[in-house]
């Protein structure tokens, strides 16, 4: 039984998708919450589904100053679920520095800067658990995923470094590595392609594509004391997608 009572968890990217699902689930499991994202209305919608104490703090994590201000408002937490991220497929031959900045600022730099600020401010309680979200595309790229894959692989490396450096305080950091999840981003992506192409993609998943709750369940476990011996790992969740892939 996962029990998060007495813990305060910060969730980034809490306005939609996996972040929203994580927030709702960890609240059901007893945790108090700090929710952040860029869209006040969407964050309020998430907050309306939270049963425990919940603080909403608007923050654009692509802006360093906003990260610093956000971190200052967090006095004491036991966990961080860093779910903020963007998907912006872009073929390599068109990449300019602005595209690198856009993707890496939110997908990679924000996690690093948020953690460094929270450590400096001594906001993490001993034994805190951090969970980051990577993607199977970090190791198995698709067309246009270069920047996204780089950002996610970087996040995995960061989580391992964090878990090593902060192990003295019994802090843990882990990464969930999902394949395709049925979020609003996927819904928007689907709109660009014909039905046959989408069916072909989804057919590659023996267990079907994932739902946000599938990922949220793993994140809640990693945030809990049940996972107290697990740190520095990346846990793949792909509905069997890569079973036939030997790479």
């Amino acid at each position, binding site marked *: 039984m996962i029990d998060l009572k007495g813990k305060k968890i910060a969730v980034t990217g809490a306005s939609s998708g996996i972040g929203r699902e994580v927030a709702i689930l960890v609240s059901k499991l007893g945790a108090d919450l700090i929710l952040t994202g860029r869209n006040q209305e969407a964050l309020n919608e998430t907050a309306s589904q939270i049963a425990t104490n919940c603080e909403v703090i608007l923050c654009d994590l692509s802006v360093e100053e906003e990260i610093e201000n956000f971190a200052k408002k967090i006095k004491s937490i036991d966990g961080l679920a860093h779910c903020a991220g963007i998907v912006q497929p*872009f*073929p390599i031959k*068109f990449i300019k520095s602005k595209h690198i900045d856009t993707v890496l600022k939110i997908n990679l730099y924000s996690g690093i800067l948020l953690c460094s600020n929270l450590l400096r401010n001594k906001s993490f309680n001993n034994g805190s658990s951090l969970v980051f979200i990577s993607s199977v595309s970090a190791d198995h790229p698709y*067309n246009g995923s270069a920047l996204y894959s780089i950002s996610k692989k970087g996040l995995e490396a960061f989580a391992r470094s964090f878990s090593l450096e902060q192990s003295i305080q019994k802090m843990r950091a882990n990464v969930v590595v999902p394949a395709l999840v049925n979020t609003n981003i996927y819904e*928007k992506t689907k*709109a*660009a*392609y014909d039905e046959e*192409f989408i069916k072909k993609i989804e057919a590659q998943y023996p267990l079907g594509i994932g739902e946000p709750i599938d990922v949220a369940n793993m994140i809640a476990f990693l945030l809990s004391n049940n996972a107290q011996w697990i740190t520095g790992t990346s846990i793949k969740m792909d509905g069997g997608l890569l079973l036939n892939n030997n790479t």
Partner: protein
Amino acid sequence: MTLEAFTKALEEEFEEITPGTISPDSNYREIEGWSSMHALIVIAFVDNHYDIILSAADLKQTSTIKDLYNIVQQRVG
């Protein structure tokens, strides 16, 4: 950029296509070998030339190169 120049420049990005194969009225999804990669190229091409990010929904509304060009022109204002 005129419609003709837009068509020619986009055609050049589809490297495997014989020059002169596509015209403003070509349905770009019917171009031989069309794939998801080509859709990404269209989005990236518009981004780099016009600083406009077309969404998946924008693409869905278009069939021909001319449709694409018209959407871009509307956004440019």
